[in-house]
């Protein structure tokens, strides 16, 4: 790989480089990245402490599985570790790149899952089957997770990045490699779809 690649060029093969004006401002991780590249083992633990919670949450919400979220988080950081020596400032922020890798790994797992399990066989919560087993809060939470899982992938990712992770539109658009307008459209459609689900639940309650 070219020694002068930036993060935006070091993505997984499925991702293509794109200009990211809003995300390429001074990277708050730049100093730590330089230390990791120089062989400072402690510096990598700083990066893990800074980003692990977010990467894990993102993977968990994307996949809905503790074990798979942990696998994705570990693989994401391991990829980062092996790429850091080739890192050069000037491209996307490290956190943006990290979230892209995590989402790509989630895509791969979701794709494999779709291939393995027929949609009809998905084990969604059946409220009528065991209405007394779940507490009300847990039940609502499960419904939210189900509703999120049923959103189209890009809409779900836009919502995860902006609503749950609090990324700005510009950063989220950069992670998803779309324009800010397209991101806003994804967000609006995602919320509309969820609202519809919520209203359906109310009317059926």
């Amino acid at each position, binding site marked *: 790989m070219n020694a002068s690649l930036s993060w935006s060029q070091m993505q997984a093969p499925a991702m293509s480089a794109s200009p990211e004006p809003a995300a390429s401002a001074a990277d708050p991780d730049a100093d730590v990245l330089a230390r990791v590249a120089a062989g400072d083992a402690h510096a990598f633990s700083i990066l893990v402490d800074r980003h692990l919670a977010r990467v894990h949450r993102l993977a968990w919400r994307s996949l809905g599985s503790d074990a798979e979220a942990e696998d994705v988080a570990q693989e994401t950081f391991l990829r980062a570790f092996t790429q850091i020596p080739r890192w050069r400032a000037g491209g996307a922020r490290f956190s943006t790149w990290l979230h892209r890798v995590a989402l790509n790994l989630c895509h791969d797992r979701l794709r494999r899952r779709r291939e393995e399990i027929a949609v009809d066989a998905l084990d969604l919560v059946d409220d009528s089957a065991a209405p007394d087993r779940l507490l009300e809060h847990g039940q609502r939470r499960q419904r939210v997770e189900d509703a999120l899982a049923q959103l189209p992938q890009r809409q779900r990712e836009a919502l995860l990045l902006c609503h749950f992770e609090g990324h700005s539109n510009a950063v989220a658009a950069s992670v998803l490699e779309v324009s800010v307008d397209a991101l806003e459209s994804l967000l609006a459609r995602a919320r509309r779809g969820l*609202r519809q689900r*919520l209203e359906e639940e109310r009317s059926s309650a």
Partner: protein
Amino acid sequence: MNPQSREQANHLLEVHGADPARWPVPSRALLEQADPGLRTQQQSLDAWLATSVPPPAPARLRAAILLAAHEAAASRRSGVLEALLALWQDLGGARLAVPAFALALALGVGLGAGMLPALSAPSDAANDDLLSLAMIDDGYAVLFTEEVSP
């Protein structure tokens, strides 16, 4: 009320929800102009979404990541040796080395055996020199007779 502002506020409501903290700072003042019904709907949706709380990343995950990175660093250090070994294997390893050594040995022996007579036999030039000396000195004539015409 400006209809354009209301339309923009409703759009922002649909994109970001009813919590002004999620709105872009310059647009937050528009929230008051949004449709109250839509605002209530979005508040309900925000409350619904707030019930989704993922578990925290377990401490063992952090340890596993750091261990994996440590192992990757160790394997990177031995990468040069591994690359040479891989090259050796790619070239056939011991299976190629034995015939290559045998071929080199055979070539060496063959070339050596072929060149030995040429090196040991007196050349024509040396015989000419001896003839010239024999014509001058009888001592050399005896030597020439022994060397060239035994």
